[in-house]
């Protein structure tokens, strides 16, 4: 029972890292980017290629996956996304759906449509028992890593100079520019960083949630749930939402498998109906 709970927490943490970038672009910059999962998938595939073709160790692949997705995100932001910030939501939706479809087909073409496997190093396999509760080592690794990352993100957003620049740029772009904040640069870096996090999440999650070309579409809703249910005022909301989602999903799948994904969808609809601004958002 507690093992399931822990699995759920690990899954939730993973979802948080995957969706953290989206929480910033969608939550703070108000840009509907449905293609966020594509960057996560890119990170996952980068890891697969680096490990299986070049034999790099898993731990070295993680930062490389981050860098790869971040670079990809940076290029896309500079070339395409920056034209879309001022557009209507409909345009943003259509544009990012288009990107999702292209990424699915391109991945299918380059890598084949089968599920990809990552072989974890031996020291991350198996499970340990703490107080009679079996805990997978890899899941523990994910929880620790993702918690550190969540803390780091919160610190960066709240305490550093870059964080305050970002918050200012999001609140009022014109005023921020007037104060000499390089808004364009801040947005580009943020976007790249968020994509990098997604890539890292994709690399970490390949073992747990699987990796195939339909990844961006399959998890699109999960990312959106994390951001909208969590609310958009801080990173704490998305973190709590991700944890809830992870626990509810894993528990639901273990305890009442015949219900499948209904639990998630039903909770999402209920929350959105009762609190359209998100569960943890202060009223605007």
């Amino acid at each position, binding site marked *: 029972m507690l093992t399931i709970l822990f699995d759920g927490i690990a899954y939730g943490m993973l979802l948080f890292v995957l969706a953290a970038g989206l929480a910033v672009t969608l939550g703070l910059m108000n840009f509907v980017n449905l293609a966020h999962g594509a960057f996560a998938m890119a990170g996952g595939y980068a890891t697969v290629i680096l490990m299986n073709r070049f034999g790099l160790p898993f731990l070295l692949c993680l930062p490389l996956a981050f860098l790869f997705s971040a670079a990809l995100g940076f290029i896309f932001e500079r070339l395409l996304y920056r034209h879309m910030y001022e557009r209507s*939501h409909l345009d943003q939706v*259509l544009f990012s759906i288009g990107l999702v479809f292209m990424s699915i087909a391109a991945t299918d073409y380059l890598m084949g449509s089968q599920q990809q496997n990552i072989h974890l190093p031996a020291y991350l396999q198996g499970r340990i028992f703490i107080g009679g509760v079996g805990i997978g080592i890899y899941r523990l690794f994910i929880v620790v890593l993702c918690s550190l990352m969540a803390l780091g993100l919160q610190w960066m957003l709240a305490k550093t100079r870059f964080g305050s620049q970002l918050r200012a740029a999001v609140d009022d772009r014109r005023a921020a520019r007037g104060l000499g904040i390089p808004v364009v640069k801040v947005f580009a870096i943020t976007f790249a960083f968020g994509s990098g996090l997604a890539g890292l999440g994709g690399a970490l999650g390949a073992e747990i949630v699987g990796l195939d070309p339909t990844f961006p579409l399959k998890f699109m809703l999960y990312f959106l749930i994390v951001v909208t249910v969590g609310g958009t005022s801080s990173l704490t909301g998305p973190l709590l939402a991700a944890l809830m989602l992870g626990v509810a999903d894993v528990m639901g799948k273990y305890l009442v498998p015949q219900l499948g994904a209904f639990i998630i969808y039903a909770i999402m*609809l209920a929350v959105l109906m009762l609190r359209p601004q998100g569960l943890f958002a202060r009223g605007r």
Partner: protein
Amino acid sequence: MLSKPPSTRPLGAQAPSPAAFLQARAAWRWPEILFWISAFGLILLFPNRHLLLNEIAILGLFALSLDLILGYAGIVSLGHAAFFGVGAYAAGLLAKHGVSEPVTGLLLSGAAAGLVGFLASFMILRGTDLTRLMVTLGVALIFHELANRLDWITGGADGLLGISVGPILGRFDFDFAGTTAYTYSLTATFLLFLLARRIVHSPFGLSLKALKDNHLRAATIGIAPNRRIVAIYTLAAVYAGMAGALLTQTTQFVSLEMLDFARSADALLVLVIGGSGYLYGGLIGAIAFKLMKDTLSAMTPAYWIFWMGFILVILVLIGRDRLMATLARPFAPLLKLLGARRP
């Protein structure tokens, strides 16, 4: 930008009365008549392409239904396939369990989808574009999951088998070439189009456009938003359900694919190509979309989805208004007469 000042009229000229204004907008123009005559003319002209034409007519109806909520009420929906699927499964189940007469099945399926749409509409009243996006997507996913899980009713992933559709009105049998199918779908689409045309040119339709342009302002001049959104959303669901029922009846098969996310996205792409907010956008877009899909999937069967994404990205990046204006310039007078706002 929202409203042109009325000073373009010569001074002293009487403003037309509201009824006259509405009637002027609702008057039939000759390209519209031509459009429908050629659509029906295709029944005689291309006897071996009727299966494709049938699909175009159904997709056109589906896109028309999305246009009702997107182009007229401004609701961005990512899950319109939910109602298409409900209608499709309803028609399939009816045909399987005794009601084999297509027109009855069509009306009942539309009613079923309408009921679902009515219930779902209360969920999109609150919140922003993003919330609506999620809710519509969530509803579609729930129905996809339902159809998948309730396999003793729906056949699950294998699809619903054993549908036998009787002759239309007890007289016209479906044939292999699809001539009956096309005639049937086109007639249904045409009749539903007439109804939609009547509705969007009514004061109700006008008030919807006011809501879309400026929610707050419309509310202050006494247009109650919620009731209108519920009404148009229900109507759009009925239309989508009927489109689904048509597809079921003419292909005699229902599968989970009817509820796919890709189907909702297809409808959006059709509207992007054809332009939204003037009823013909869905129909013209459906023609362009199907022809394009046919050619592209003949070239690269597995990767058609890539080109679909590519077209979406290009259309949005360049600006669909600008690109379409360039492409449509030769036809501009024609489109304007069809009621498109852009040249």
